């Protein structure tokens, strides 16, 4: 009998796992997908909001594609219980699915602060496609949109809101924007840039209630200065979807604890993406990286291992990029390394071009980097990618470390002369060249 792989979650991790199984397996196995939504890419939802793509563009594993991949899908269903001893998964409609191995890729959900009125009409999260549809329906030219939370998710939709002709106010409880992506100086550069683009920022501001007033929303603020809004977007964080694993015996810390093969404490149960607590490439320590690239790599590694390969994962590199009104903001690795000696933190600023960089070192290896710069400057050199390459490869930079301290805007010479390319070229995630997307190799 064919082996049965069960994939719980149809996001980036699950989708990549399915593709990798089909690409790597020797004998066609049975694949069952359980997903509470039709699979789509969260990463591209902001472009749907901005109307630069149609809703159809967001879907990844469409029904024809799932059929082509030979996947039996339980869409609109949610996993509610796992019994690893019996090898059984229970769904919310009572269906029981037996498995040979299973992937936990249930991702995260948006959370809102417990504030009176926060679940009323005109107040939305921007996380699921269903939530995004509501935002799309309500944001128009001239709308006043208030975003509560100034983190990565909020910033991914900022351009689209402005492009629609809406007015935008950002409210953040922390003293500054993007507290988990860039440092204070970087945040100041971005805040200055945003103000010149007509965005109002209220940092250090605490929401105490939302009231419905004459068809609009009134945000009550602890510090005073209430804000009236047509649409409120709550971008106040996410939580990992782990509750359904309670009592399963699968070891959970901040996420499902996984080994270098992304196996949980139960050897035939894997975890990937936002729910997995796997190795951080730079620190070597377990961490939850709720970012798209980690979900993608995790998913591929799990898929290959489910298909019988023996793929050890080196760990995921924390990385983020945002386009803020054509000011690019990116960070890699340990950009906020609290343990880095002061001498090993290098900053460079070009205030007249809204340029800012920070390089963090351990010895002569770059372990973290941050870059802020105008799109028309950044993409004439692409130091963004090379900084990622320096952090990812861990290449020893020797005397180039001091050069970069004095010339943080000239990365390329250091990158090339340190033979970073030679280190990187043999690197592949699955130990072989990647096939193009959309290819089915081994399915019957």
């Amino acid at each position, binding site marked *: 009998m064919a082996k049965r792989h069960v994939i719980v979650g149809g996001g980036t991790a699950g989708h990549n796992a399915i593709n990798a199984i089909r690409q790597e397996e020797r004998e066609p196995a049975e694949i069952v997908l359980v997903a509470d939504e039709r699979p789509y890419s969260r990463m*591209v939802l902001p472009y749907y909001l901005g109307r630069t793509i149609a809703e159809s*563009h967001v879907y990844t594993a469409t029904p024809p594609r799932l059929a082509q991949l030979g996947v039996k899908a339980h869409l609109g269903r949610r996993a509610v219980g796992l019994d690893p001893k019996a090898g059984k998964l229970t769904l919310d409609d009572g269906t029981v699915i037996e498995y040979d191995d299973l992937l936990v890729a249930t991702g995260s959900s948006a959370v809102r602060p417990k504030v009176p009125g926060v679940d009323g009409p005109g107040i939305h999260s921007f996380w699921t496609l269903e939530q995004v549809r509501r935002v799309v329906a309500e944001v128009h030219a001239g709308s006043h949109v208030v975003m509560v939370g100034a983190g990565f998710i909020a910033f991914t939709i900022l351009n689209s809101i402005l492009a629609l002709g809406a007015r935008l106010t950002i409210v953040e409880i922390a003293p500054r924007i993007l507290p988990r992506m860039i440092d204070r100086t970087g945040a100041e550069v971005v805040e200055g840039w945003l103000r010149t683009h007509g965005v109002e920022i209220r940092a250090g501001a605490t929401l105490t209630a939302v009231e419905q007033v004459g068809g609009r929303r009134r945000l009550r603020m602890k510090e005073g200065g209430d804000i009236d809004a047509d649409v409120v977007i709550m971008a106040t964080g996410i939580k990992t979807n782990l509750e359904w694993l309670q009592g399963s015996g699968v070891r959970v810390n901040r996420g499902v604890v996984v080994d270098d093969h992304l196996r949980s404490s139960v050897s035939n149960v894997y975890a990937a993406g936002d729910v997995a607590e796997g190795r951080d490439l730079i620190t070597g320590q377990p961490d939850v990286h709720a970012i798209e*690239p980690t979900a993608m790599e995790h998913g591929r590694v799990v898929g290959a291992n489910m298909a019988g390969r023996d793929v050890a994962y080196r760990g995921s590199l924390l990385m983020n990029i945002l386009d803020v009104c054509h000011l690019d903001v990116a960070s890699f690795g340990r950009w906020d390394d609290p343990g880095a000696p002061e001498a090993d933190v290098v900053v460079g600023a070009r205030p007249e071009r809204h340029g800012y960089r920070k390089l963090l070192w351990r010895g002569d290896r770059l372990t973290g980097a941050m870059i802020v710069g105008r799109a028309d400057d950044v*993409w004439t*050199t692409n130091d963004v990618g090379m900084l990622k390459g320096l952090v990812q490869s861990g290449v020893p930079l020797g005397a180039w470390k001091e050069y970069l301290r*004095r010339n943080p805007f000239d990365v390329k010479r250091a990158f090339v*002369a340190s033979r*970073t*390319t030679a280190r990187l070229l043999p690197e592949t995630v699955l130990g072989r060249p990647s096939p193009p997307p*959309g290819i089915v190799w081994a399915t019957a």
Partner: protein
Amino acid sequence: MAATKVLKIVPERCTGCLRCELACSYMQTGTFQPAKSVIRVSPFEGHTSYAPYTCFQCAEGWCMTACPVGAITISAVGAKVVLDDQCVGCKLCTIACPYGTMFYNPDTTKAFKCNLCGGDPACAHACPTQAILYEDAETADWLGDFAAGRATPWLETVAGNGGR
């Protein structure tokens, strides 16, 4: 895999004339604008040596695997190519590529990169000194030894004592 022809760079032959950048930008975007070129000539050893640098068409294809909508694929000639009608401009490929050879065009709001001009690379044609060849080869770190041999001693002499 498809064809194995790659852009082989022979940095010792580069004069820094930038014709490859002009040819590339014209081929890729229809304008003679080096900022839109996906092959970039850089100075080494101060400004006495130059070498062009472009996508290695690496085995992993970091840009391709990172794309959330499958907008980067492998062309018939083995190049990783961006499908413009699929690319949404999210820039994930630009941070995934560790070589710095994935670019973003603010005018089109799409990612762009070397596509080997469909198997007839304009940069190789334009190079008057055969510093850029399009031939059967394994992709390699064409510039590393060249730059290490010139730029690192330069750094140590000019900047002295680690740059101080």
